[in-house]
């Protein structure tokens, strides 16, 4: 469409020049400049697609490979998540396709999927570029052109929402391991499954934590501020934070909804500083979280506590902020300090470190788990028939000891939502992440309130 437009514009330009009307030529150039400026946002948001396949197994596959479509932001401003998940999934494929009897993971002891004659898993990658439109296009491409058996992705709720539409239309199972918007499993989709908790859970946990803080420290916390980005995940997270704040007796005195990918957050922080709540929650991605911390420091302002989500567990956060990142809290599913007491997690972290020089974080641990859940369902289905895979999903029951995440089990409810899975609260202290709540799981006492910038 874009190229057609330009071509049409050029023709008009040429006509004007031929007519000798130089003024009109300039006019067309000016108008094209205006329109190009407007279109820049969409055209420059990421322009390299990636359709990369994992390396083929060294030995010939006894039966046809099982193609799984993976959609994550491999380019764009959230590419760091895509890169982390890609590493984790490549490791998962290696474990499933080869024998790792010492790892207590589903399908690790066998080579490939035993119920399908040892068929190997093959990942076909689609790049969402972090946008819902690209996510949907990638899903369509993977279903129609690559004929994938199932889809996995996409991290951002807004992308998962659109990418799961073609899956529903074409009847292809879609497993989402890492989006928390409650709406996703409320749509009544037949082919959509989610093996991660919803925003309802972590937002409630955050408010339960502050209720406990009030009891423990007699802190008299009452006022609450929310920063949330303006895509599906941010908006719904903000809504649920407001809901639970009200339920637990807190008052939301400022809610700042801001454009994702904004280059400056001065106005947002100034509004929050003006309201000066006791507590602030950031429902934003890692780039926003980094910028918020820097802008709060510039304004020499901090509330008694700032909490964010698992995105600030990514190494980029502390790499970027150093000591300024200390004392922030986060809700998290994959607390490194707790899960590394589990032998399986320690071994998997070693394998990741050996291959990529990085260990698991929350998003990559969830993506890793997602592929095992999907492979387990396909194997139990004993077929690539979508209906059989869907039926197998409903019967999923992976015990806690067979996964990297610290959950009791993976089972789905009637809405295809993970039944259980809890968050803990961590605090960054001395550049490390420590679990501080629930109190009985704490590996360190919380430092409360967080010290002001001057006290550091």
């Amino acid at each position, binding site marked *: 469409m874009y190229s057609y437009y*330009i*071509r049409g*514009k*050029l023709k008009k*330009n*040429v006509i004007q020049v031929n007519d000798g009307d130089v*003024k009109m030529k*300039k*006019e067309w*150039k*000016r108008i*094209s*400049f*205006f329109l*190009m*400026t*407007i279109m*820049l*946002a969409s055209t*420059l*948001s*990421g322009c*390299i697609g990636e359709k990369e396949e994992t390396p083929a197994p060294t030995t010939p596959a006894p039966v046809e490979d099982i193609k799984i479509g993976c959609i994550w932001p491999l*380019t*764009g*401003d959230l*590419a*760091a998540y*895509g*890169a982390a998940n890609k590493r984790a999934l490549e490791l998962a494929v290696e474990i499933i396709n080869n024998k790792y009897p010492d790892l207590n993971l589903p399908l690790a002891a066998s080579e490939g999927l035993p119920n399908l004659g040892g068929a190997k898993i093959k990942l076909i990658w689609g790049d969402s570029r972090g946008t819902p439109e690209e996510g949907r296009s990638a899903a369509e491409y993977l279903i129609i052109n690559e004929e994938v058996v199932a889809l996995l992705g996409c991290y951002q709720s807004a992308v998962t929402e659109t990418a799961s539409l073609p899956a529903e239309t074409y009847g292809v199972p879609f497993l989402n391991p890492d989006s928390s918007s409650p709406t996703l499993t409320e749509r009544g989709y037949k082919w959509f499954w989610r093996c991660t908790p919803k925003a309802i859970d972590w937002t409630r946990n955050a408010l339960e934590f502050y209720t406990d803080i009030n009891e423990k420290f007699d802190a008299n916390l009452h006022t609450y501020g929310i920063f949330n980005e*303006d895509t599906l995940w941010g908006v719904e997270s903000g809504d649920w934070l407001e809901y639970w704040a009200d339920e637990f007796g807190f008052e939301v005195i400022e809610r*700042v*909804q*801001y*454009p994702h*990918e*904004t*280059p*400056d957050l*001065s*106005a*947002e922080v*100034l*509004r929050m*500083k*003006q309201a000066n709540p006791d507590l602030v929650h950031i429902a934003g991605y*890692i*780039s926003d979280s*980094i*910028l918020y911390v*820097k802008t709060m*420091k*510039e*304004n*020499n302002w901090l509330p008694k506590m700032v909490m964010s989500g698992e995105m600030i567990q990514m190494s*980029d956060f502390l*790499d*970027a*902020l*150093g000591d300024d990142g200390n004392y922030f809290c986060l809700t998290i599913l994959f607390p490194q300090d707790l899960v590394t007491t589990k032998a399986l997690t320690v071994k998997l972290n070693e394998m990741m470190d050996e291959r990529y020089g990085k260990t698991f974080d929350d998003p990559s641990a969830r993506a890793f788990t997602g592929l095992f859940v999907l492979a387990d369902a396909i194997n139990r289905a004993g077929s690539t028939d979508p209906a059989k895979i869907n039926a197998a999903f409903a019967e999923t029951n992976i015990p806690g000891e067979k996964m990297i995440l610290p959950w009791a089990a993976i089972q789905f409810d009637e809405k295809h939502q993970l039944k259980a899975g809890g968050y803990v609260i961590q605090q960054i202290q001395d550049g490390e992440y420590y679990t501080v709540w629930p109190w009985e799981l704490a590996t360190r006492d919380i430092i409360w309130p967080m010290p002001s910038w001057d006290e550091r």
Partner: protein
Amino acid sequence: MDLVYLILQVIINGILIGGVYALIAVGLSLIWGVMEIVNFAHGDYLMAAAFFSFIFWSYMGLDPLISLPLVVVIFLFIGFGTQKFVMKRLIDSPTLITIAATFALSLIIRYGFFVVFKPDYRVIRDPLLQGSLHISSISIPIAKMVTLLIAIITMILLFSFLKYTKKGRAIRATAQDREVAKSLGVNVEQIFLITWGLGIACVGIAGAMLSTFYYVFPLMGVTFVLIAFASVTLGGFGSVHGAIFGGLAIGLIQQFGGTFVSPALKDVFVFGVFILVLIFKPKGFFGKY
């Protein structure tokens, strides 16, 4: 914070970020004004400059303020190189071709850095410019303040060059009418070379200074360049004054709209004004055409 202090803070925030937008927009406007080339790669040069500052800091321990002259010289030559090896051959080509060329440059630079540096967020820690000045309840971030000062100095130097030097006058003459300038003996090809050098050096300064208070990331240019394009539109095509005016105006509109109405709507205000300017003042405030 009292309302008066709040308004003062908003004005300061608007001018500080507006100065950055202006510095980015100046180079864009200069290149457009002289050669009528829309440089789609402008934001990526900005990102590359921030990465150069980061590299000097990371590998040689040079603070971005210290390495700034080096970055400026490097980007001056990168600008020369862009003209000499890429744009020179396309100067009389249809607009579509130059757009495609700068778009291709944009992708090459962006994803070149993407591949080499991975999609990781980097921040220059403990730069010379850190902390804020606190006057009563008003905060002025030192890094942004110095960036504004450097932007002002850059613009004064650029104006002086364009107005008082022979080459500057030749650039302005070429911008007014390339053919007439050529017939009067102006070496137009050399003027194009200088213009690309100056334009990219300006965005190099912006990128280097941005690295003192913003994260460095392969896609960081995209968000800024959109604002730069809007700044050029508001100020008027081909006008360096206009680009400065546009940058500052957008900074202030964003801050006032974001603080007093809603941050979710701050870009709506910016592009709302953008549309109004298109309707009522299509040449922009200082535009030539």
